[in-house]
């Protein structure tokens, strides 16, 4: 077993929070971030922008423990395959992870046997047009940003363009954490290339 595999997560995260309310929230976030009612946005400020940039950097450097620490204990990440906002309960996407399945993904990366990441992809995430707003009803900050993931693997470089929507909450310790994240690739409803790195 490789050294990386030895560090695999020992305690499995709880997934006992994914319910209708959380699914409805994901749908609302996607609609809100792309709909005509969105108003009062400002350029993402220092603290929110820093969270977005830090998350991107940790993924690019494949520092998965540190990456997972940017999320709340009851977080969700959704990468839909549908062109327009849809009830995630009725739609199979590219993936929709709770914290437990994020942990599964990390363990796969560290298993030493994920052939599609042998060798691993080198990635650089470009975040631009970052805006944020206060979701008064949900009492949180939401940010959206355009996103291009550049990926290099086995001599080929390609781009994964899209945008992301991130719901931010403040932990009791005072740091900003991601509660929900949606990544929409431009080609989400078209055939996807063989990404295997964590989006």
């Amino acid at each position, binding site marked *: 077993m490789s050294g990386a*595999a030895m560090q*695999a*997560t020992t305690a*499995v995260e709880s*997934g*006992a*929070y*994914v*319910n*209708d309310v959380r*699914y409805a929230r994901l749908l609302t976030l996607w609609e809100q971030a792309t709909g005509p009612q969105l108003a009062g946005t400002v350029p993402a400020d220092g603290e929110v922008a820093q969270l977005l940039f830090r998350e991107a950097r940790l993924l690019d450097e494949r520092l998965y423990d540190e990456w997972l620490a940017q999320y709340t204990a009851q977080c*969700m990440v959704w990468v839909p*395959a549908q062109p327009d906002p849809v009830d*995630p*309960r*009725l*739609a*199979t*996407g*590219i*993936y*929709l*992870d*709770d914290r*437990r*399945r994020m*942990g*599964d*993904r990390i*363990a*796969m990366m560290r*298993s*030493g*046997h*994920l*052939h*599609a990441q042998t060798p691993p992809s080198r990635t650089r995430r470009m975040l631009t047009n970052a805006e944020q707003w206060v979701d008064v009803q949900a009492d949180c900050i939401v940010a959206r940003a355009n996103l291009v993931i550049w990926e290099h693997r086995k001599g080929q470089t390609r781009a994964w363009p899209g945008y992301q929507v991130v719901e931010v909450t403040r932990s009791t310790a005072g740091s900003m954490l991601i509660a929900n994240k949606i990544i929409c690739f431009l080609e989400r*409803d*078209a*055939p*996807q*290339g*063989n*990404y*295997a790195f964590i989006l």
Partner: protein
Amino acid sequence: MTDIQPLLRRPVPPPLKDGKSGSFGHLVRPDGMVHRTVFTDPAIFEREMSQVFGGTWVFLLHATEIPHPNDFKCITVGRRPVIVARDANGEIRALMNRCTHRGTTVCLQQQGNAKRFQCAYHGWSFSNTGELLAVTFAEGYGPGFDKAAHNLGRFPRIESHGGYVFGSLNPDVEPLLEWLGPARALMDWSLTAFTTPGARVVRASSMVFAANWKLQNDNNGDMYHVPFTHRSIAQMTAERHGAGKALDHFRSDNTPMVVQYFGHGHKAIDQRPSIPSPWERARPVPGREVYSEALQTGFGAEQAQHYLNMTARAGINLILYPNMIISGAGSYNVYEPVAVDKTIVHSYSVVLDDAPVEVNALKSRFLEDFAGFGYRDDNEIFERIQHSLSTIPEMEWVDFSKGLGTDRESVGADGVVTGAVSDETGIRGAYRYWLELMERDVHPCVLT
């Protein structure tokens, strides 16, 4: 059984001369060897588009994807753009998406509802039965112009079974049920996913990889690869979720599971003997705790267990040649060849409008599970194979001989060949059918 000659002394096969019948027999050998050019030669790929995708039945769509009068969906059949349209009376036709005037694609929308399709180039319009309704500036056409000869090209044969709609460009193709043969029993089992009126098929996600379409078809009937290709999943699952989950039943070659070859290229892996409860075996998906509890509270233990087992996609791999795998009850994939080294796979799921939403939510998450974790490694392997086969002409053969010359293979009274689950029995059968199709000289055609 044919002697297997030492690799280096095998004669080099003659190059494919004209891509006509009689040129393929040396590429598929009775000892389980298939020539690399079957996966890499563009001339062979062209012939497949004509003799395989144009010569036999091809899966088009499930009828619930176009449930209402005048619904349509655009698909691809052996690269040909096709509109599958239901007319006002409910009849389903497959129409070539090509204007009979100058060849423009007439419908760009992927899916929708329309009584007619108007060409964007010169405005000719066609009904959803394919009939040419109107020619613009018609006075420019003389008396010799035959309007009826300008209907959209129509597939000469459409037949369906349990809502699965198949089409063929070969007017002489055998009846669908005859072609399905003994594969029908497993297909009928998969129809248990459609037993309520609210069941409908929806597209999940699609993927594309840089390899020949047959590598996917082979792989779906190959359980030899599971513990190795999918080792990352097996290891992660064992570490995090304990033994007895997910792919654990493929760790040994000694199992009650079998591979079967049904004829006409159809093969299956029957995992059901090793999966008493798909739900118990499933890796935990998002919502597992909340939704299983809700189902138990709402419907009682027995009905809840029935619902939960419906959410986990495990049971069978039924591969209907050439372009479909039904994977358990309630989901299937369709292969779409794009080029000799490029393939698209579309995944579909059955949503149950009249089942509790918990069932659909768990099912949606379960379908993302193997698609996200497993397909990636499969695709990587396909691309590695394609790269080697295309770049090393000195190494000619691909070996599908596992199971041959052993006592693990038997032929039943119904002609079904049954083998040990990790043997390449089904794949060999599929290549025999491939050869049969490629050696024929079918002339695929359309009705106007």
